[in-house]
């Protein structure tokens, strides 16, 4: 097992390279989901504001 992690003496090159790529993958997944969550939140807010606006207008008319 330790032989596997030593990578034939190239451990200090192989593992950082793989680590950076996997970190980028995880970061990309996180950022994409956060973008969608934020867009959903903003859209929900806009929809709610519009509903309130419509209600206020209706009350003002009566």
């Amino acid at each position, binding site marked *: 097992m330790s032989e596997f992690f030593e990578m*034939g003496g190239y451990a200090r*090159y*192989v593992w*950082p*390279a793989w680590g950076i790529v996997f970190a980028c993958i995880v970061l990309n997944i996180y950022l994409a989901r956060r973008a*969608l969550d934020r867009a959903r939140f903003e859209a929900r807010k806009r*929809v709610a504001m519009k509903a309130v606006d419509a209600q206020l207008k209706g009350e003002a008319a009566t």
Partner: protein
Amino acid sequence: MAWTWFHRLGSPPYVYSLAARLTPWFAWPAAALILYGSYLGLAIAPEDYQQGDSYRIMYVHVPSAWMSLMVYTTMAIAAAVGLIWRMKVAHAVAASCAALGATFTFCTLVTGSIWGAPTWGTYWEWDPRLTFQLVLLFQFLGYSALRAAIEDPQRADRVTAVLAVVGVVNVPIIHYSVEWWNSLHQTASVMKLGKPSMPPEMLVPLLVMALGFTFLFAALLLTRLRAEILSRERAASWIRDVVNA
């Protein structure tokens, strides 16, 4: 009609729900392929007779590099479709590509640099392949910066689309750079005419990783596209049904 699929792809609500339905079909295979490819590449593939185990960097470097070019090409095609047919969804696709492309390009440069240390004896050289790949990173970053600098969204779409389409010239330059100039970087082993110059035990893990990265890109692009569509469709009434669902 044969063209109805194309017209449907111009409809934001249709694309939004299609993207939502398709995402898991790309995300889970991507996870499985990348994990299996990593196992094959790190533990099963034989060591290289010349480079020893250092060549295993290839299994993340080469898929990242292919993806950087594929993402740019996708972005340029989407931008062109947006310009020609004035398709809002196409511009949203192009906008969703930039950040993903920048990270794949960054990964290519960093892993290549790390690989260069033991094999070339240097982390960086102003070699054509390396230099044009660095230019590609600046193209992705420049695209995002330009988009952020223009307030009117429709104008931002058009201006960045022109930049993306013009910049696609760098894609063949990067691919053929190792043939056109005397390069420190090796020439193509897989993406060339004829048989790949690699034994199957080394090639299969690479192809598994590359397929995994492609699926990952698709899943990330669809997720970002949904976010992009939601924030663009300000007045549309279908948004209400989507966010309250």
